[in-house]
Each structure stands twice: as C-alpha cells, then as structure tokens.
C-alpha cells in the first residue's frame, strides 16, 4: 500500500474514464447533452485535480525514490506488471497534468459544435494517458500510455482543428508513431537484457556501453520528437497551427514535457555513459533550436506559429539543463518544463481569447487592444514577461539555473544558451507591441469586450502560478530537490566507474522506493 492508503495513482489515472462512461450514458436532445457533457468533463477533471492535491500534501519530500507505489501482476510470463508510483520529478508532472486539464476543458467550452460529447471524451481519455505516463513504473505500462496519447490527440487535431487539420493530424501521428516504434525496439532490447520491465529494478542494473549507445538512439527517437528538438520539430508547428486552442494547451503544457521526462527517467538514469557521450550532440541541437526558433518567432505574423516557435525554444533550454547532469541543470530544466507548461499554455489561451472574438490569428489584424481590453492586456503582459524570463516570473528561475549549470560545462554553451534571454525578450516584446499597443485603427476592434468570467477563471490560476513559482520557487523545488540530487550523484558515480559504487549510488534512487513500499 502507500501513503494514501488506497491506489491513489490508479484512481487518478482511470477516474477520467469514468467520466467518459457518464458522458456516453447521457441522453436527450443535442443541446442538452452537449451542455451536460461539458459539465461532466469539467467536474470529472476538477475532482481528479482535487484528488491529485493529496499528492501535493502527502508526498514525503525528504525521501528519494518512488512513493505511492502500487503493484499488480499483469504479464507475469514476461516479468511485466502493472506498477505505478511517483518520485519527486514525476509528481510535479502529474500535478501539472491534472491542473491543466480543467483549464483546457474550459478553453474548449464553446467549441465542439454538435460533437461536444466526443470532444470532451477525447480530453478525458487524454488526461488518463497523461497521468498514466508520469506515474507508470513499468516500462511496458509506460509505453502503452505513451502511445495511447496519440489517439485522443490525433482526434482532437483532426476533427476540431483548423483548415489543414487532416495534414497536421496525420503528420503528428506519423512523427510520433515512428519515434515510439523505434523506442519500442529499445524497450524490447532493454527488457531482454534486464529480464524485467520494472523501472526501479532497472536502475540497479548497469548496461554495457555498446548497448547503451543503441538504446540511447532508440529512446532519443521517441523523446526528441515529443519534446520536440530541432530538426524534428516541424510537426509541432503544423499541429499548433491547426489544433484547437485546448489541444494546443495540452500539447504545449503536457505532451512536450513527456519528452523531457523521458530523457530524465530513461536516458539520464538508465544510460549514463551514453548520455554523457551524446551530450555534446544534444547541446548542439538545443543551441541551434534556441537561436533558430527565436529568429523564426521574430518574423512570424501568425500568433499560433509564434507560440509554437517560442515553445520549441523553451524546451530546448530544458534539454540543455538535463544534459549538464548537474543538480542545478536538472532542477533548472524541471523549472523550465513546468513553467513552460503553464506559461505557454496561457499564451495559447490568450491567443484563443482573441481568436474567439475576431476569428483571426494574424498579428496584423490586431493592435491597440490595451484600450479596449485593459485587463486582458495586463494578464497577457504577465505571461509575456514569463516567456521573456523576467525575474519574478516562473520563466526566470529555470533559465538562470540552466545557464549557470551550462557555465560549469562550457563557457560557450552557457553564452549561446544565454542568448535566449535577449532573443526571447526581442520577439516577445515585438509581438506584444503589435497586438496590444499601437493605434486602435480597425473599427471592429473598438467594440471588443474585455475578457469574461470563464476566461478569467482560466487565466487567473495561471497568473498566480507564474508569479508564485517566480517569487517562491522553493515550494516547488522541495519536491524534486532530493530526487534531482540523487540523480546527479548517481550519474557522477556511474561515470566514475567502479561497478560497486555504481550499484550503490543508482541504488539510492531505488532502495528508497523499496523501503517506502515496505514502510507504508
């Protein structure tokens, strides 16, 4: 059993499916079922969120290793079992998934048309798979959730997206599917080598260098596409451009984080030597991404593409942090991913607010909104500052930690990564000026309403998070301090080399989990 005294993670994971069942039992005329479906989905996701707060309060922060563990036999013949649990890293991702889903559902409130039931179903199924990914402690269970994410997202983009939605949906699916099928080969090879699919057990088992090399490439295929890393980012631009706002919120807020989570959980923890030798490549790709996407974002006139490019640039910083293998780097990348999760999500919602009113996603169609929508302009500015990485917002913490960590690796790496501070300020401020300031020339803009209650409910929690994390980051970092320390330490020891050390340090990550399982 676990701290909660009941299988909390499974409950969180599968509760949204109960909402799906309710939605499919709804009867009545189209209007009524659509309304009921929306409320059911919202309430389900809110209940899941409230339940997930148990994780926030009951999580033992001093403890390295996996907590809230569950274990059920599944495929005993192959040593795979249904195993769930969270450590200091994944607990944050579970929480951000449960927090963003109600917001995404709210942002989808007016869309869906006659197919609101199906639309809401897709979001709830997506929530199940997202929580499942971050709490799976079995490689196979992880893979099942990792792949299952594609189905609801494919449907969300393909059915409710923009004009070129079919192209974007199929591109999204094939990119992801190709990446994860290659990862499947890696998973199978790892499985055969270790004889188990339990992630905590795998942490004890050192892998030969040549196997690590190939495994790194296999896992890289899946996670690089997910995060996404330059040059396999092209699907993301199309997906964000065509996906409905709610889809983009989860795509940027959670799906991108799956890639980063995967790098931390698998590449860094299981393949230390290979990660070390591939680090320069990762740095190179990430730096190219930072500079390239910043320039691309600067010239965008399309708000959605703007957000997409800035999202890629931000995740590239997280990649740099992960592959410094230092405590600052890993914590910085975690801050970067979490803040990216809600700041980019908020930017998409802000764009959605405009698109709801004007049906246009081009910056040229706006200008001078500060006068007609002052409250909106204020909120938008906070998120824009978060994107820039202004001290006092969540964006700053991650960037500064990663840049410091990069400095310890290489001066030039740090310098090039640091360009993001300037470049993101340039492109964000240019965008903000075009949309919010300037003359209020177009007549149709003069009659715009400021944001309404639904939009305030979506945006204000994100504002609070942005500032909270910026001003008092340690209320988040206490969760992953211990885990990040252990991870960095295990990595150093693994590289230093004697097998005995390796086992004991890697063990630190997992031994705790055993005692946690036993003690509670």
């Amino acid at each position, binding site marked *: 059993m676990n701290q909660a005294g009941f299988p909390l993670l499974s409950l969180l994971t599968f509760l949204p499916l109960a909402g799906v069942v309710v939605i499919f039992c709804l009867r009545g005329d189209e209007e009524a079922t659509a309304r009921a479906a929306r409320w059911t989905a919202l309430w389900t996701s809110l209940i899941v969120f409230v339940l997930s707060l148990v994780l926030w309060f009951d999580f033992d922060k001093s403890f390295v290793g996996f907590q809230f563990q569950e274990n059920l036999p599944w*495929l005993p013949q192959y040593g795979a079992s249904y195993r769930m649990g969270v450590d200091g890293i994944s607990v944050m991702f579970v929480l951000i998934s449960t927090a963003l889903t109600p917001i995404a559902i709210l942002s989808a409130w007016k869309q869906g048309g006659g197919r609101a039931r199906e639309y809401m179903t897709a979001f709830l199924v997506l929530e199940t798979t997202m929580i499942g990914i971050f709490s799976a402690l079995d490689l196979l269970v992880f893979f*099942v959730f990792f792949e299952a994410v594609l189905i609801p997202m494919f449907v969300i983009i*393909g059915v409710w997206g923009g004009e070129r939605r079919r192209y974007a949906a*199929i591109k999204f*699916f*094939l990119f992801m*599917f190709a990446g994860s099928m290659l990862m499947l080969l890696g998973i199978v*090879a790892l499985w*055969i080598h270790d004889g188990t699919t339990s992630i905590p057990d795998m942490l004890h088992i050192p892998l030969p260098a040549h196997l690590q090399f190939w495994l790194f490439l296999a896992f890289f295929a899946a996670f690089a596409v997910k995060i996404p890393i330059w040059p396999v980012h092209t699907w993301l631009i199309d997906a964000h451009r065509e996906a409905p706002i709610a889809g983009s919120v989860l795509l940027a807020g959670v799906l991108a984080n799956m890639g980063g989570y995967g790098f931390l959980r698998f590449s860094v923890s299981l393949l230390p030597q290979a990660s070390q030798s591939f680090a320069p490549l990762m740095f190179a790709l990430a730096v190219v991404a930072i500079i390239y996407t910043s320039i691309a974002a600067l010239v965008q006139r399309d708000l959605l593409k703007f957000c997409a490019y800035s999202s890629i640039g931000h995740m590239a910083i997280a990649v740099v942090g992960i592959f410094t293998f230092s405590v600052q780097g890993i914590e910085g990348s975690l801050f970067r991913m979490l803040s990216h999760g809600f700041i980019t999500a908020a930017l998409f919602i802000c764009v959605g607010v405009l698109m709801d009113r004007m049906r246009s996603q081009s910056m040229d169609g706006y200008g001078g909104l500060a006068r007609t929508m002052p409250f909106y302009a204020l909120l938008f500015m906070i998120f824009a500052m978060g994107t820039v990485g202004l001290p006092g917002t969540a964006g700053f913490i991650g960037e500064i930690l990663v840049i410091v960590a990069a400095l310890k690796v290489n001066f030039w790496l740090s310098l090039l990564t640091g360009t993001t501070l300037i470049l993101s300020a340039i492109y964000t401020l240019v965008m903000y000026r075009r949309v919010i300031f300037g003359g209020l020339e177009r007549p149709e803009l003069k009659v715009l309403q400021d944001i309404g209650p639904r939009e305030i409910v979506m945006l204000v929690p994100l504002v609070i998070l942005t500032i909270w994390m910026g001003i008092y980051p340690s209320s988040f970092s206490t969760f992953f301090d211990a885990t990040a320390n252990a991870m960095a330490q295990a990595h150093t020891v693994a590289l230093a080399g004697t097998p005995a050390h390796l086992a004991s340090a890697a063990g630190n990550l997992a031994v705790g989990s055993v005692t946690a399982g036993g003690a509670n």
Partner: protein
Amino acid sequence: MNWLVALPELALSLCGLAILIAGVFSPNKHAFQLTSMLSLGALLGVGGLVLVSPTGLGFGGLFINDAFSRFAQLLILAGAGLAIILSLDFNEREEGMARFEYPVLILFASAGMMIMVGATNLMTLYLGLELQSLALYVVAAFARDSLKSSEAGLKYFVLGSLASGILLYGMTLTYGFSGSTDFIHIAKALVTSTPSVGLVIGMVFVMVGIVFKIAAVPFHMWSPDVYEGAPTSVTALFGSAPKVAAMALLIRVMAWPFGHLFVQWQLLIEIIAIASLILGALAPLVQTNIKRLMAYSSIGHVGYALMGLAAGNGNGISAMLVYLATYIFMTLGAFGIIIAMRRQGRPVEKITDLAGLGRNHPGLAIAMTIFMLSMAGVPPLSGFFGKLYVFLAAIQSGLWLLAVIGVITSVIGAYYYLRIIKLMYFDAPEGAFDHPAPSLSFVVALTGAVTLLFILVAGPVTTAAQAAAMALLG
C-alpha cells in the same frame, strides 16, 4: 487406439452431416437461417468439446490433441462462427447466396482445419487440408451467377490445386528419404544423420505448399483477387479461420518434424517474412478497393506473425499464437463493417465510400477506428501485443534486421490505416449506408470489445499461448 482425442472433429463432421440432412428436408425459405443457427450451435458445442476432450496421441499416432491444437482449434471455431453470423444478413440480400449448403460447407471446412492442426502424420495433414480446401473452393464461387465470384472460385481452385500438388510432391520426397509419413519418425530421421538433400528439398516443397495457403509473398498472388472477387461474407471467412489453421499447421510442421532443419529453413522464413512485410506495407497505399486493401494488409500481418516463427524459440511460437488470436478478431470486425457498406441495397466497396461514416454511423466508425489502430499496432489495443511479442521473440534470437524492417513497415502501414480513419471522420459524408443488420452490429460490437479490452486478459491469453508453445516444443 484412443479415438476420444478426436472427439471434437468427429462430432463436428457428424453435426455437418446431420445439418445437411436437416437442410435438405426443411422448407426452402427458412433452410438457410435454420442450418446457420444449427451450425452455430454445433460450433459452440464443439468448442466445449475441445476443452473437455482428453489430450494425447490417437489413431496409432496419426492425430494429436494437445494444448497447441486446442488453442488453434478454438480460434478456428470462433472465426468460423463469427463468419457464419456475418453471412446471416449478407447472404439473404445477395442473389442466390441464402442456401443451406453455405453453413454446412463452412462446418466441413472447419472440420478440415481442425484435423490439419491436430495432424501428426503427413497423410492426416493432407486429408485435413484437402477437406478444408475443397469446401472453401465451393464457398468462394458460391454466388454462382456472379462472374466475379465464379472467377474468384476458379482462380482459388486452380492455384490451390497447384499448391496442393507442390505440397504432395514435398511429402513424397520426405517420405521417400525418411521412410515414414509419421512426424515422429521424420523427426528421428533428421536427428540421427546429417540431412539428405532430398529431405531438405522435400521440406522446402512442403513449406511452399503451406505458405501458399497463408498467402505470404511470393505465393500471395491469388489472395487479392480472391478477396476482391468472392462475396464479402466469404472473404471475411477466408481472412480468418483458414489463415489461422494454415499458420498453425506451418508452425507444427516446421517446429516438429522439420525442427532439426531449423538452420535450413530459418533464412527462407525470414525472407518470406520480410517480403510480406514490405508488400503488406506498400501495396495498400495504392488500393482503391477496401477488400483488396484488406488482402494486402493481411499479407503484412502474416509477415509479422512469421517473424515469430523465424525466431525459432518458444517465445516466438507463443507470440505467433497471440498474434493470430488478436488478428482474427480485428479482421472479422473490420469485415463486419465492410459488409455493412451498402447503399440502397447494393454493396459498395471503394475505400472512399467510407467517407463521413463518423457522422452517419458513429458506432461503426468508432469500431472501425479501433480495428484500424489495432492493426497499426497502437497500444492499448490488442494488435499491439501481437507485434510486441513478435518483436520480443525476434530480438531475443538476434534478428535485428527483421525487427527493424518490421518497425519501419508498421510506420508505413500506419499511414494507410490512418487514411481510413481520416476518411471516416474528417471528410465530407457521401450519403448514409443502409441500417446495419443486428447480426452485423453484434459481431462488430463483440470483436470491437475484444480488441479494445484485450489488455485486461493479455496475461491469461499469453499463458495459454505459452502452454501451447511448450506442448509443441516438448
């Protein structure tokens, strides 16, 4: 002599004869429905008998009842039963198809298939294979006034006979060089000495004969034409039970009498698997007819399943069995939807006819989505587990090339499965299909549930498949 081990086969044959007589004497109007219902009852009863009949060798070593044959026989019976349910409505609507011989022929074919998978002697094997084939030749040409159906039947017959001839030739060679038709003795002849060239050639001919039946490249030519030409209810049958039977037969023959020639046949099976994978991934991209598409897609699936055989270990064989178990349900479900493609009473079979299914028949569209994603191998659907297991087995045996090609082809394959989903949901509707018959909805719902919820029973099914593989390998 322990004839009880063949109780299910005997019972099925007797039921077939009895139902035939019942069909002859019942009024013409209801004969088809009556014999269909009786046949379903017979299949269900025989399924029960398979579970309770004693295991062991019987008929002086001609026939065996073991965990392997049971696993395959249950799949065969399920496939045949669902195919009969699919034909209930279809055959009524088609000119001259609603005749009582139809379910009876399927019963005889099933009996033949059950004998095939239980055969431990080349003679029994051939007997079962021919009983199956002859019944299926007739069924393929069952719409005898339709030019396409007759052509399909004739094609199937001519090429099938050719394959039988090749098989028989291989069997004579094997007999001549090993001195026996018994699997046990053939295996013994192979273990004691270095294999003679004659035996190897005999083995290759036997293998080619069976590979023809499973329609793997390069012996697949007949399959798209027969799939397209035969009435759709017949195609559904062809895609399910006979594939499983021939596949099980191939496993049995390769693993047991020719098991010691593993080194000789492994490369051949690998080549066949790779060729099937590639054709199964590329050819569907240019198809316009959904039945032809399914034919090529099934060629691809045969390729994946053969990866398990090429691995040549117990995990590989159990992986194949799991693959077949998942395949049979998703194929029959997909064919259920293809049979439901009917406008103003006329069947339509272009892929583009599926456009707008999501709007007109949301239930069917969801089911089709499940089948297509499962065929693409997306978890948590059943098709993923089949693929996972064969990859696992292949990598365990170090067949990296095969595994990598399998991964690449499944990404290419995903494209055309997605194209179907895209048509159903994203494209403008073309006009609703006729309301599907309850029997069709039943099959689609059942197979859809199996495909979707397989993940919950994956453990027990894998255990059964491993027991079957262990029974075969000893």
